[in-house]
């Protein structure tokens, strides 16, 4: 027998022992370790339960570890967090009680053995294995498009589906139905009677094509299709934070979207511009540069959250990442903020890789309650242009500032001299503490009789209300009258201030006197700010410095309940803690006056209190000094005028590039590893090159070039024509979404789209020329039985008009529709904003422009749009709902807007010569057809029997046509 070289058996022995050891390890794990883990740890650390981010039900689970890091250092129990935790050294695990010593030792032994663990699971990306993710249908490259791909190709695919299921196709729709369908689909408006006549009379073979070209060329096309886009990007005109501040400049993005559709901007460019238009066109000529900036309004219009929106900026980022995923690539990404996606191949690392792009971007700031007004709008002019526009104003402003400074110096001087004079010339006439809820006469604790006080012209009587100790945010009623003893008709009273309280400060008094409303905390400072309403009541008008009213009046003839019950036609002084407030009267006469009146605590509440002082500043200069002090702030000054308006956009700009750190379980205060900015891993995970700035340009390239992006957009266009997509979950092409009903067709359409320069109009032509699009909306019996959801498109899907189409149609029929584009909304000027969470922005603006221009608020839904299933301004709306509820019917019975449109129609009808013409005209305007003879007869009878004025009779007839199903539904 030949001898083996000695090394070989040794090697075999080593190999054998390793195998044995591995088996032993597995045995040890299975017999000793797994039962312990299951018993003590799985409750919180297995499956979807990963407390502290730790999974203990797989090898990768403990290798990856939780928030505190890897759980086991193989071979080294003393360095393993898991062992430390069960030893109760730092963490105490399990929390229900320390394990028995022998169990702890078992786990230590296991770790020392190298923690053998057979629980190896295949590599996963989020909720799919890497293999599943790679082979997922929606991520596959697009096939080459057939060279002869036309509308007929689509029909062949549709017919194949029908044949396979034995469903016959419905017959083609009539010409009227088709024109209504096509006109609404492309413009959101009904065809005019003239357009209908022309089309019905045109028997040429390309009549339909000519109509399509006319509609595609109409500027109303962009409004309709742009509005669809605004649905998915959850466009709104307010920010959505606690005060729901208006987004004054967001309209530029809205109009840009409409315009981009009208120009048939290639979709890939349309996508890129919304993510990185500012970078793409940074060096382009002006118009293109500003267009690029405006397009990034897509990012800027993201929702803002909470009180201080900077503190919740991670939610705004989530809102964008969520929308970016659903909107462009049909992947739900938002949930990866807190954990890897449970079903789709998206990881938390993917999420934070994306977040870095946003964290490297500067967003226009919409303002919020604690941080004031909007800022960081992006100018649409080059810096040099801004400068040349601003220069003349800056010069004027410099003069203005200099004059202001001069006045301030004068006022300081006057204040100093006021203090000097007052220190020697003050007579305290009366003073007193006002007990809780009490009313005391001004003559309280008077130092002399208030029946006759000698005053000289220019001297001042001042009534000051001051807080006791540190209290005193209390409303104090002041009713103060001064009478001349020389001329009985000369009377001055605080009540004379009430009717035109906000007129001015100083406020002219009777007989040449002057009243001053003052903060008297440190010498006199005139109250500067006036407010027309307080606490929600227009009756309460106030002067203040800052937000707390210092002096206010109730102008109502009735008591008003604001803060407390405020008596009718009264004046109140409201000092603050450490803050005194005064009313000063400057005498216009030399003579004797008497003083009477009362001060009262108008807001009884425990633990507070105020006092008053009545003083006589017996120096004839004092009034002048007060005026000089007031002049500083109040006298008219040659204003430099408003700064020239630099056109700006609500958009984004580059900021310093950063990478984001993972927020463990979505908590922004618990930071994990830093994730370099990159594209999501399942779509390549491309990293950024050096010096890429924020990287948004690269991000926009990645997104726009994904085959799934083309699939998603093609599916949207299909859905908006046919009522449902080939994939019926247009925002979700992942594992939880729907599978395409015609996969090859979807791929071919997407490939065609790419090949034809991403032209959306070319898709309309392709789709609208199919026989499938031209079918009647009547389902045949086989279809109803075998395909009730009409996935195979044997017939057209009847649909209700959208909220916007409905309102626009009402305005179109009443001939009140204004088809010109709208720009900004009539928001109150920014400088006047005082929105708080208690008093948020809230408005509904009427307009006869197209409904796509209605002002849409995030916190308060537009009543009409909410009633008729308008888009949700807080979330992407890929499919409009179409609910039927009785409150909608109430709209058609009683809404003033609806009645107004019907009345307008009636007025126009009455200009027609006879009832027959009127009825014909009514049908043609609203339904684009002639009435049938029986309809004609019935409506003639109706108008006769209705028995009101002609306007009302015809108004009622118009309401019937404007409320009927034929008007509201598209066959």
């Amino acid at each position: 027998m030949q001898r083996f070289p000695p090394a070989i058996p040794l090697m075999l022995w080593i190999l054998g022992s390793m195998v044995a050891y591995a088996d032993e390890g597995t045995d040890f794990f299975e017999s000793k370790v797994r039962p312990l883990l299951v018993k003590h740890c799985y409750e919180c650390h297995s499956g979807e339960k990963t407390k502290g981010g730790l999974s203990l039900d797989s090898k990768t689970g403990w290798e990856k570890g939780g928030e505190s890091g890897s759980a086991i250092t193989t071979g080294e129990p003393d360095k393993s967090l898991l062992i430390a935790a069960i030893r109760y050294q730092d963490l105490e695990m399990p929390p229900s009680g320390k394990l028995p010593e022998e169990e702890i030792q078992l786990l230590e032994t296991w770790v020392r053995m190298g923690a053998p663990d057979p629980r190896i699971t295949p590599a996963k990306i989020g909720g799919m294995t890497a293999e599943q993710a790679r082979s997922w249908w929606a991520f596959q490259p697009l096939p080459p498009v057939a060279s002869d791909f036309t509308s007929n190709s689509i029909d062949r695919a549709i017919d194949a589906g029908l044949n396979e299921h034995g469903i016959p196709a419905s017959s083609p729709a009539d010409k009227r139905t088709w024109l209504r369908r096509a006109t609404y689909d492309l413009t959101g408006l009904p065809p005019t009677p003239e357009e209908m006549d022309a089309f019905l009379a045109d028997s040429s073979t390309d009549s339909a094509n000519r109509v399509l070209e006319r509609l595609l060329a109409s500027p109303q096309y962009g409004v309709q299709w742009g509005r669809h886009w605004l649905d998915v990007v959850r466009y709104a005109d307010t920010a959505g934070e606690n005060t729901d501040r208006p987004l004054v400049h967001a309209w530029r993005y809205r109009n840009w979207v409409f315009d981009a559709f009208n120009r048939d901007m290639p979709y890939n460019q349309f996508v890129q511009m919304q993510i990185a238009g500012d970078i793409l066109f940074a060096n382009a000529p002006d118009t293109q540069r500003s267009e690029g900036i405006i397009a990034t309004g897509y990012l800027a219009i993201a929702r803002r959250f909470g009180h201080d929106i900077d503190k919740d900026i991670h939610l705004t980022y989530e809102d964008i990442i969520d929308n970016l995923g659903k909107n462009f690539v049909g992947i739900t990404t938002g949930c990866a903020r807190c954990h890897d996606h449970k079903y789709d191949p998206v990881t938390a690392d993917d999420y934070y890789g994306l977040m870095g792009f946003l964290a490297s971007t500067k967003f226009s700031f919409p303002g919020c309650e604690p941080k004031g007004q909007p800022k960081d709008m992006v100018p649409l002019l080059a810096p040099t242009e801004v400068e040349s526009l601003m220069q003349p104003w800056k010069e004027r402003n410099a003069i203005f500032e200099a004059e202001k400074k001069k006045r301030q110096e004068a006022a300081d001087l006057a204040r100093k001299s006021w203090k000097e004079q007052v220190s020697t010339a003050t007579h305290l006439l009366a003073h007193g503490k006002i007990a809780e809820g009490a009313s005391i006469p001004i003559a309280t604790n008077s130092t002399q009789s208030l029946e006759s006080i000698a005053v000289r012209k220019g001297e001042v009587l001042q009534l000051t209300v001051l807080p006791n100790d540190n209290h005193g945010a209390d409303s104090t009623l002041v009713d103060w009258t001064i009478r001349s003893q020389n001329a009985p008709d000369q009377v001055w009273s605080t009540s004379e201030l009430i009717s035109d309280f906000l007129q001015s400060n100083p406020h002219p008094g009777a007989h040449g006197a002057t009243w001053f409303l003052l903060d008297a905390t440190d010498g006199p400072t005139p109250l500067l700010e006036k407010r027309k309403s307080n606490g929600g009541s227009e009756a309460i008008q106030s002067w203040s410095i800052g937000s707390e009213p210092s002096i206010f009046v109730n102008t109502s003839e009735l008591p008003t309940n604001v803060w407390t019950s405020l008596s009718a036609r009264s004046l109140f002084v409201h000092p603050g803690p450490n803050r005194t407030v005064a009313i000063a009267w400057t005498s216009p006469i030399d003579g004797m006056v008497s003083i009477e009146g009362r001060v009262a605590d108008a807001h009884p509440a425990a633990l507070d209190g105020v006092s008053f002082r009545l003083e006589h500043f017996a120096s004839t200069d004092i009034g002048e000094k007060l005026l000089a002090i007031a002049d500083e702030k109040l006298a008219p000054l040659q204003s430099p005028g408003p700064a020239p308006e630099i056109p700006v956009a609500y958009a984004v700009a580059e900021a310093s590039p950063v990478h984001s750190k993972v927020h463990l379980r979505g908590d922004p205060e618990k930071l994990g590893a830093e994730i370099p900015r990159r594209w999501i891993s399942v779509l390549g995970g491309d990293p950024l090159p050096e010096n890429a700035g924020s990287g948004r340009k690269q991000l926009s390239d990645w997104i726009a070039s994904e085959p799934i992006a083309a699939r998603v957009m093609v599916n949207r266009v299909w859905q908006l024509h046919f009522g449902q997509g080939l994939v019926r979950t247009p925002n979700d092409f992942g594992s939880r979404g729907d599978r395409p009903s015609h996969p090859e067709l979807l791929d071919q359409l997407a490939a065609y789209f790419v090949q034809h320069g991403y032209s959306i109009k070319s898709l309309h032509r392709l789709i609208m020329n199919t026989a499938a699009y031209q079918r009647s909306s009547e389902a045949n019996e086989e279809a109803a039985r075998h395909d009730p959801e009409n996935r195979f498109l044997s017939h057209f899907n009847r649909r209700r008009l959208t909220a916007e189409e409905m309102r626009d149609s009402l305005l179109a029929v009443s001939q009140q529709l204004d088809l010109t584009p709208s720009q900004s909304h009539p928001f109150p000027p920014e400088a006047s904003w005082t929105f708080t969470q208690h008093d948020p922005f809230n408005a509904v603006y009427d307009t006869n422009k197209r409904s796509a221009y209605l002002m849409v608020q995030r916190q308060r839904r537009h009543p009409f749009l909410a009633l008729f299933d308008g888009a949700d301004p807080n979330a992407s709306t890929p499919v409009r709902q179409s609910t039927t509820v009785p409150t909608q019917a109430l709209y058609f019975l009683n809404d003033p807007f609806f009645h107004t449109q019907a009345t307008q129609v009636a007025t126009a009808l009455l200009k027609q010569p006879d009832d027959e013409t009127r009825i014909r005209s009514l049908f043609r305007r609203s339904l684009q057809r002639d009435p049938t003879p029986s309809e004609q007869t019935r409506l003639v009878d109706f108008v006769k029997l209705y028995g009101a004025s002609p306007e009302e009779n015809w108004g009622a007839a118009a309401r019937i046509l404007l409320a009927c199903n034929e008007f509201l539904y598209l066959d």
Partner: protein
Amino acid sequence: MLPPILTNRRSILSSIVGSTLLFPAIVEQLLADNRELGTDPLMPREPHFPAKAKRVIFLFMTGGVSHVDTFDPKPALTRDHGKEIKADHPEIKDRPGYERIFLKKPQWEFAPHGQCGMEVSTLFPHVATCVDDIALIRSMHTSHSNHYNATLGMHTGSFAQSRPSIGSWMTYGLGTINRNLPGFIVIAPKQTYAGTQVYANDFLPGAFQGTLVVPGSEPIRNVAPRTPAAKQRMELEALKAINQEHLAARPMDGSLAARVQSFETAFGMQTAVPEVFDLSGESDATLESYGLKRGQTTGFGWQCLAARRLVERGVRFVELIDTGSSGNWDAHGDMMTHEPLAKNVDQPIAALLKDLKQRGMLDDTLVVWTTEFGRTPFNNTAEAKGREHHPWAFSSWLAGAGVKPGTVYGETDEHGVRVANNGVHVHDFHATILHLMGFDHEKLTFRHSGRDYRLTDVEGNVVQAVLA
């Protein structure tokens, strides 16, 4: 027409089953209950299991009611008045002037009431006479200290994103009984924090949105007829005729028929709605018990009596909001403002409970009383007149169908700062309300954006101790 995805649960399920081998996690989907809606989303539906409660009256006190001054007696707080404490509290963090905080005593006395001896302060003398019907939870807590977020959370279970409100979930779960009235009605004199989001259907179908009633001359928008009844009837007949002809040619379209029907309902609403809100048929004694003068059409007493009349007529969920986003319980400046606010609601709430009980309706009506958060038992001086927002602890109560009467559940610490035991988070509160209505909160779901959503998000435990 509903989005196709809704009407098509069977095919969703089958596609899920088909992919189960690939994605075992999806099996859980099969447990979810996305309710079958068909073409008539408002059709009455059975809950998951039989429940006593058929309807809810949800009383929401806006602004944050101070627990230590109303339903959570804290003698130690009075004893330790002025004592400095430390708390890592969201409302005082980095807030100038709040470097130091001091305990501040309650301003109202507490006394035991009823057979059960539940302690209630003098702010709620009338509600105190109903304690034997109430299950009080003194250990409520919430996730946010802003009005907006906490109000949204109490209504939708979501503290930042807008989500369907609890009333919408309930109508989604149960449908409605009376077709002449909306299934979910909110009576509020003013808008509260988070605006219309507190009663929005959000991603649920629009049929489940809350209908706003504003006390006054036209409680529901467009419900007042603009034409005389006979003329309106003529119009409706003519409309019906033209619609019937249209429908005859399209016989298979349920949504067209539903819309024809909706006009009849709306016509009925024009009389049903004013009838509900016309209190003239109520006796003097009833009006008086609610603190109402004959002919009065505003005030919380009116809201409460209207609520009784609405649930009597089959409305599933009625929410009453006492006031708006200003002039409410948000007593930063002065706790004494709690007095008129309590006075505004106390007698009407007690009258509502007694009225329901006397009519036997408390047996199948659940009454919920809550606010968005409590108020701090401390402030930056002990003499400060107000209290700040306090998400850590507050009190809410349940009464009526399925509720264990005369119960107090949960405790705060001796000063009412933190929950001491048996904490009930807003999610738990919602889970309990859904349970009382016959729903497993984990199963009442709606598929949206590829996920099954529920009112309680991924949280929530039913508070068994308050169940009868």
